[in-house]
């Protein structure tokens, strides 16, 4: 292990996790005063965002493997340590999480039932996500993995739509089964490593040195992949997502699509690939095929949907297919593109989900048959909807394109055929997105209902997202720069 552990510094990373937890607790303690809860959770999420922003600006360009590292002994008996580590990729994910969380809190402003619990769960979810992105010890990682799961389950099952129970249960079972395999693999790896070296440890950095036979590596890798593939989600393990996204409350779907889905891919990058390089190498083509199937399957399915939320859920699956494809290409540019796309997809699809929630609030429907002509009634809303849709469609100059083109440029250098097939998927993306835009914005307006335009609060949610979408499309350099070093080390496999 590195000697970074001894550096005395302020525990910024712990702060990122502790702050939302404290916020959640305070929310629960003020359950009688909903207004306070709102203000409190907004303040908390803003504070977390502030910390993340500070880290991005002041620690974004560090030397060495890690930008920040914290290591405290935790459960000594088992060799589980409280290790948090942040590299460029984690930094981006942390930034995205804290940013989306502010939006989610603002979006949930009008929740009426069990306000304090809602915000507490939202903040707990943020803590879990932060933990996933920062943990560098497998027990800790698994712990946060489950911590992030539970609030989401309640968010869906209590505040969700008509079919919420079933959707929540489906979500819970899928992810739980996946993570169960991961748990087994974690323990097995721990045992193997301990028996080999005599040092029983869960820290990823220690486990990297484990010598595994091909069969062992394959099985352990499969265990981890079960969790990550379900979470990513790749076809055919994706049906939980469409239901969960469709049924969950607005803030929940924002977090689900923007952040929770990324944990699966992040797990691939941070845990599965480095720990099992040989198995990874063998598995990459399969991963690519799964990704491509997912990309096309979801694009086709999206075209058939009438419920706009469900359509967006499929579009998420399709985009994440491209992200996974970039990872499977195992190429520097493609990886950077994938990570960038992950971030930008979080923002664009997040924005779309916000807008869908607003549209549903105003019109009471999500069916394209009953929508249309919104542009004339609420031009600002329509404009932003168009903007995010176009970004999602991969228009150059908007956020998703930067990631997509990097993925494709990188992938083509390794596997031209994959890139070409993926490009065909781009047309399909255009097909369903344009169908969405046409169904929502164009056509005759429904005269019997009036659709008010965006309010100030909604502007505050959407405007930063819109600005980011353009910024990331035109000048993604600030987001690309921090990850260069991290991607390089991860690809080389030469981790400390």
């Amino acid at each position, binding site marked *: 292990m590195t000697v970074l552990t001894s550096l005395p510094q302020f525990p910024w990373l712990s702060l990122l996790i502790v702050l939302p937890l404290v916020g959640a607790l305070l929310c629960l303690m003020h359950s009688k005063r909903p207004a306070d809860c709102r203000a409190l959770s907004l303040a908390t999420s803003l504070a977390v965002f502030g910390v993340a922003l500070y880290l991005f600006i002041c620690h974004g360009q560090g030397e060495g493997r890690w930008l920040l590292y914290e290591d405290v002994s935790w459960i000594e008996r088992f060799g589980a340590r409280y290790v948090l580590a942040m590299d460029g990729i984690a930094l981006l994910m942390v930034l995205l999480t804290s940013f989306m969380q502010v939006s989610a809190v603002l979006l949930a402003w009008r929740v009426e039932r069990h306000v304090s619990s809602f915000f507490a769960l939202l903040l707990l979810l943020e803590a879990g996500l932060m933990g996933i992105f920062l943990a560098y010890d497998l027990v800790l990682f698994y712990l946060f993995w489950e911590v992030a799961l539970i609030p989401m389950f309640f968010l869906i099952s209590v505040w969700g739509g008509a079919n919420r129970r079933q959707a929540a249960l489906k979500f819970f079972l899928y992810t739980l089964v996946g993570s169960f395999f991961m748990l087994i693999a974690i323990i097995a790896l721990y045992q193997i490593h301990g028996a080999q070296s005599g040092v029983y440890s869960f820290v990823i950095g220690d486990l990297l040195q484990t010598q595994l036979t091909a069969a062992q590596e394959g099985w352990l890798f499969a265990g981890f992949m079960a969790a990550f593939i379900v979470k990513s989600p790749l076809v*055919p393990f*994706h*049906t939980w997502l*469409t239901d969960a996204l469709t049924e969950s409350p607005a803030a929940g779907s924002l977090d689900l699509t923007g952040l929770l889905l990324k944990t699966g891919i992040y797990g691939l990058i941070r845990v599965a690939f480095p720990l099992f390089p040989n198995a990874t190498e063998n598995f990459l083509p399969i991963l690519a095929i799964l990704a491509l199937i997912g990309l096309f*399957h*979801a694009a*086709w*399915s*999206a*075209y*058939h*949907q009438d419920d706009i939320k469900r359509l967006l859920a*499929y579009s998420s699956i399709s985009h994440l297919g491209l992200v996974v494809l970039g990872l499977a290409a195992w*190429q*520097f*540019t493609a990886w*950077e*593109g994938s990570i960038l796309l992950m971030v930008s997809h979080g923002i664009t699809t997040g924005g779309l989900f916000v807008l869908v929630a607003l549209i549903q609030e105003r019109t009471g429907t999500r069916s394209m048959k009953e929508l*249309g*002509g919104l*542009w*004339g009634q609420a*031009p600002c809303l329509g*404009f932003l909807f168009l903007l995010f849709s*176009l970004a999602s469609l991969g*228009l*150059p*100059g908007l956020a998703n394109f*930067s990631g997509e*083109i*990097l993925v*494709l*440029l*990188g992938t*083509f*250098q390794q596997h*031209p055929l994959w*890139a*070409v097939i993926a*490009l*065909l998927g*781009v*047309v*399909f993306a*255009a*097909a369903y997105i*344009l*169908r969405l835009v*046409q169904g929502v*914005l*164009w*056509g*005759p*307006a429904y005269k019997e209902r009036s659709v008010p335009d965006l309010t100030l609060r909604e502007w505050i949610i959407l405007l930063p997202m819109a600005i980011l979408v353009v910024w990331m499309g*035109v*000048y*993604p*350099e600030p987001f*690309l720069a921090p990850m*260069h070093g991290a991607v390089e080390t991860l690809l080389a496999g030469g981790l400390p």
Partner: protein
Amino acid sequence: MNESLLFLIPLLPLCCAVIIMVFGMRLPRLFAEVLAVTGVAGAFVLTVLFWGYSEGEGTRAVLFTWLNSGSVDISFALHFDRLAAPMTLMVTGVATLIHLYAVGYMHEEKDYARFFSLMNLFVFAMLAIVLADNLLVLFLGWEGVGLCSYGLIGFWYQKLENAKAGTKAFLVTRVGDVFLAIALLWLFAITGTLSISEINAQATSLSPGVVTVVSLLLLLGACGKSAQLPLMTWLADAMAGPTPVSALIHAATMVTAGVYLLCRLFPLVSLSVVAMTAITAIGALTAIYAATCALAQREIKRVLAYSTMSQVGYMFMAVGAGSVAGAMFHLLTHAFFKALLFMAAGCVIHLAGEENDIFKMGGLTRRGPVELFWVFLAGAVCLAGLPLTGGFFSKDGILLALFTHPDPVYRVFWLVGVVTALLTAFYTFRLVYLVFAGEYRGVGHPHVLPLLMRWPLWPLAFLGLLGGLLNLPAFVGGSETLHNWYDNLAGRTVTASHEVEWMLIVLAVAITAIGWFAAHWRYRIYRAPQENAISRFLLNGWYADALVDRLFVRPFAAMGRFCSSGCDRTLFDGTLNGLAKMATGWSALIAQMTTGRLTTYLSAFAWGFLILLGWFLLKLVSGGGH
């Protein structure tokens, strides 16, 4: 002056677009209009001012890094050279006139902010294509053009058909974009750069097979934007947009982008004989296809749309025959007279009381200002290729290039070009006769033509008629200005004996005359059209839409249904529900054993105890005691 000021040329329309988009509805209408026109006119003036930069190898300017990751290092960079300069001038110039016209045309439209901001954005995107230094910036403009056409064709979105036409334009061109993107990725993979000039420089060192494939991909990409076979179906429907938009799409922006792309990458494309032949073949096929379709159209703008397709086919043929100068020459003259024709058609439609059908027009010389007839005629004779007009010289140059090409197969293309010219002359004059000759057959009341819709036509008529001077052939005493200006970028120098040239000219004149006379004979006096299978076939564009629908759209929708209902609902969810049912069944079975009765549990415990004991015993017996 600093060369990065060159960025003002595309950024001026962009900034105006953004300002209008954000503040348009809050500011007075006049402000938005002035801003829109100023943006484009400013770009025109700047182009003139910066003309000097284009000489020699041209000037490169880098704004800032766009994407930087690993070996990818792409900047927002532009390259103002001899190929880009005239194109920029044309785009901004024609677009300025169109914008002026649009101010008049849209004076009753309430949603003007969206319109003008999209128009300015459109010009920006086209300038990005023209000025791009690397293929990614070009791709930015390329997609941007698609987006703007989407927004503008579907501008009157309340009618769902308009929105659908816009969507169609975006989607069909996007299919072409995919091929362009593949070419882009491929070029990057083999050359390690996306800079156009570097790719052109490295072209000779690439393997011929790769060059051929990449060129064909580029061709398909160009086909999408330039509405060539097989990706041409969107253009006719694009008439759903306001007339200034049609003018912009057909004359200054969008459809010419494909031709420009091929000219830009000509050093690469020209290396492949197969690709060059394919380009010519596609151009020729489209030219004759569109010309036949134009014969039977009833809507004035559709006739013009098909004529555009046909004329762009000529430009493709020119590129295929190796004459970049010829292609660009035709592109420029075509831009002038087609913008003119569209804008005049807009006036005509206004006069006919928003009537599109040419069979319900007629006698419009007497209903509106007579000058309209003259400017429309000026455009028409250019299109028909009447001698001494701009269109005549540019088209003749292309036919000459085809005729003199060493490969004998080009004679076939040349013949197609000649036949197309005949058809062009025929349908052009058919249009003129149906619209202007005879008595008025419609019922609509004429609208008043605002001044702004009238005077922008004059400069265009002037340019169209005298456009030939741009590149007057040597044998009629010209100096081939454009060809010399392009210098080493001009492609193959067409050399032919004077006899051949004169023969071709005489032939062209004869053909135009025949077309005119045929139209004169058939349409001078109005006769009601007869419906028959052939006319329906041509009217529907050879049923290409239906074919596309059958071949692609329906299978796609079916696939969507299959994936969503078939796979997800039935297969995946069904399997899981089955598993869940099975688990529930098992659990019910096990739950039955949980009777809740103490006695059951106790006896189960006792039996278990017995088994345990028995096992011990067995172990002892098999172990032979201790």
